[in-house]
Structures are given as C-alpha cells and as structure tokens.
C-alpha cells in the first residue's frame, strides 16, 4: 500500500484517528532471537522482553468492537512509500459532525522487521484542533515519543515519554502536561520484568502535582502468557482490572475483562468475541457487558473494489438507548 518498506496498516472506518504503526506496538509472542552478532546462550536462561506496560491488557481489548455512531467515511491516499494522507468525514445526529485531515510520515530508519523510524502522525479537524505524535528510535534500546493535542487554539495535552527495552525488562518514564510556571504536571513511570518465559510482572508509579496539592498512585501488574491465551491482572489504588484473552481457533478469539474501581464504587464485566473469515473477507466482533450493553460490529472487504464496509450497532437495555453506525473506508 505504501510500498514494501512500510508495514503500517491504514486506519479502519471504525477508528479513523491516526494510529501508531503496528510495528511499534507490543509483540506479545515475539519471534525467536535472530542469530548473528549476539553470542549464543542456553535457551533456558534467555528471558524474552516483556513488551510495553500499557499493552498487558491490549490483546483482550482488541477483541471488543469499536462503537461507530452515524455515518463515517474514510479515504486513504498513499502518496509515496513514506507519506500517506487520509480524509475522515463523520456525520452524526447524536454528536457534532466533523471532518479530519490526517497524515502519516514514516522515515527510512529500520529498527526491526516491521519497525521503522521516525514516525510522524497527525490530524487536524475543521475547527483547527490538532492531534500529533512523533515517535523516534533514539538508540537500539531507547525509544521516545512526543504527543500534542490541542482544542482550537488551546493546548489540552502535551506529553513526552522515553522507553528503555532491556534484555528481559522494559522501563519507561513519561511527563504529561508539565507546567513550570503553574508548578503542575504528571510523571508516570513503568517497569515490567520477565520473571519466566511466560510470566511478566511489573508496576506503575504515578506522581501528580497541582498548585497546593500532590498525590501518588501505585499499581502492580502481572501477565501470564500461554500457548493460546493471555491473562493479565492489574491491582492499584484506583481499582482492579483483570483480562483474559483466548484464541480458540484460527477463526475465533475471545476476551473477558473485569474492571472494578473502588474509588468510583463500580464494577463491570465485558465478554467479547471476534470471528475472522478470511475466505469471505469478513470480520465480526460482538460484545456483551454486565452494564446491559450488547453490541456488534461487522467489517467486510468488498473485493475487488478497494472498499471496506463497517456496520455497527450498540444497544443499552438499562438506559433504553440504541446506536447504530455505518462506515466506508476507501483504500
């Protein structure tokens, strides 16, 4: 689509916001280490890198469908092997309609089989609000990311983070909305360690400072990876999050998630599944939750046309609300 060097998939009609290229995401089932310059080790002493802290529950969350309200049209245009633009039009009766223009630039540097750097992703809407991210591989083990989000002429979020990937651990630090003049900001540190080839454990420390007030939050995370399943648990001051992902077959993936927040005194369970039928170019996702919400998303590629069709519907029995959506993505 953008040439053989780019492995980043285009954004889907269900989520047209610019996404990180998949090569910069977590490899939960990493490929075997390449032979070559690194000296050979005993297989039993090698622990894999556990990946990113935020990706512990990602496998389960990817199974759940994304809600689409109204009509969404996404047009992707590849201008070169490094540059891609997209137009996203959203028409809705329940929320404001919008148009967004997005771009993605991928550099020539290659950090891995599907990882390229630097990566610049951004989009701007009709009111001038901007979302932008810059991802760069500083060294072989250090990766940095800078993100901005504005609402018209006001900066809403500005964030900078750095991640260090060791042999069997990952450490990251992020600064969110640092304001020296206002003496406020948020510092987030992550650490994830591979205890065994299948078990990874870690923690997160959040320090939040505001004028006249400061607070610290800590949470612990554990993730167990099996042959075809991933279980993760996060325990923190704000609550508990548990997820279980299971690949039943090549066509069926299931995910169960439990979220319980002691601070908000609420808990919920979500059960989702994903059906992939490559022969029919079809992907179906369904979800049901303890909040009396039932939803589904159907995505089908209309080959040989470069079109993908997305149908979505969500029904909240408790609030007696029904939302449906329709999307078309042109590649």
């Amino acid at each position: 689509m953008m040439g053989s060097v780019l492995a980043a998939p285009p954004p889907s009609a269900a989520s047209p916001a610019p996404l990180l290229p998949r090569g910069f995401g977590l490899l939960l089932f990493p490929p075997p280490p390449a032979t070559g310059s690194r000296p050979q080790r005993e297989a039993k002493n090698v622990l894999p890198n556990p990946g990113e802290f935020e990706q512990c529950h990602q496998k389960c969350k990817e199974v759940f469908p994304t809600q689409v309200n109204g009509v969404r049209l996404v047009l992707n245009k590849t201008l070169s092997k490094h540059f891609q633009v997209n137009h996203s039009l959203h028409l809705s009766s329940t929320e404001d309609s919008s148009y967004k223009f997005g771009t993605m630039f991928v550099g020539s540097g290659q950090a891995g089989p599907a990882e390229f750097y630097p990566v610049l992703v951004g989009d701007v809407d009709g009111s001038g609000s901007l979302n932008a991210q810059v991802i760069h591989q500083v060294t072989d083990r250090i990766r940095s990311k800078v993100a901005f989000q504005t609402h018209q002429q006001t900066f809403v979020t500005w964030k900078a983070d750095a991640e260090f990937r060791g042999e069997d651990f990952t450490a990251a630090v992020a600064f969110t909305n640092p304001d020296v003049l206002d003496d406020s900001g948020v510092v987030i540190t992550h650490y994830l360690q591979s205890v065994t080839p299948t078990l990874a454990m870690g923690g997160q420390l959040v320090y939040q400072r505001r004028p006249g007030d400061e607070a610290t939050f800590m949470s612990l995370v554990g993730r167990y990876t099996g042959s075809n399943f991933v279980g993760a648990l996060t325990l923190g001051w704000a609550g508990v999050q548990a997820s279980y992902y299971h690949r039943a077959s090549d066509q069926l993936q299931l995910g169960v998630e439990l979220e319980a927040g002691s601070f908000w005194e609420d808990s919920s369970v979500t059960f989702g599944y994903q059906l992939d039928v490559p022969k029919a170019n079809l992907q179906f996702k369904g979800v049901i939750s303890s909040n009396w919400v039932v939803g589904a998303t159907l995505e089908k590629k209309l080959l040989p046309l470069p079109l993908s069709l997305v149908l979505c519907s969500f029904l909240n029995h408790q609030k007696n609300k029904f939302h449906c959506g329709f999307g078309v993505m042109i590649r």
Partner: protein
Amino acid sequence: MANLTMSGSNAKGSFPSRVSEWISSTYRFATDRNDFRRNLLVNLGLFAAGVWVARNLSDFDLMSPQPVT
C-alpha cells in the same frame, strides 16, 4: 381434621412460593447496583464464567462443510 387439611395444603402451596421467592431474591441480588460488594461478587462470578466459556469454546469452524442429512 380440617386444620390438618388446611396445613397440608399450605405446605404444598408454600413450596412453589418459596421457589419463586428464591428466584426473586436471587434476581434482586444479582441486579442490585447499590451495593459495591454485591456487584463485585456477581461480576467475579461472571468473569469466572466467561473465562470458562472462553477456554471451552474450540473447534469452531465457520467454513466447515455442513453435515449431510
């Protein structure tokens, strides 16, 4: 004799009423969202049930040929 008959009919009639009361109380327990501990207990049970369903759903092939009847 009439009292025995009356008590016998009460015993027979109370069993289905006890079952319906048990079902009603179970429904109220499961749907009561005002108690955080109850919600957490119910959701833990739902999570365990969901994990059991996920682990036992296999051999799901949509493209398999239909059985010939």
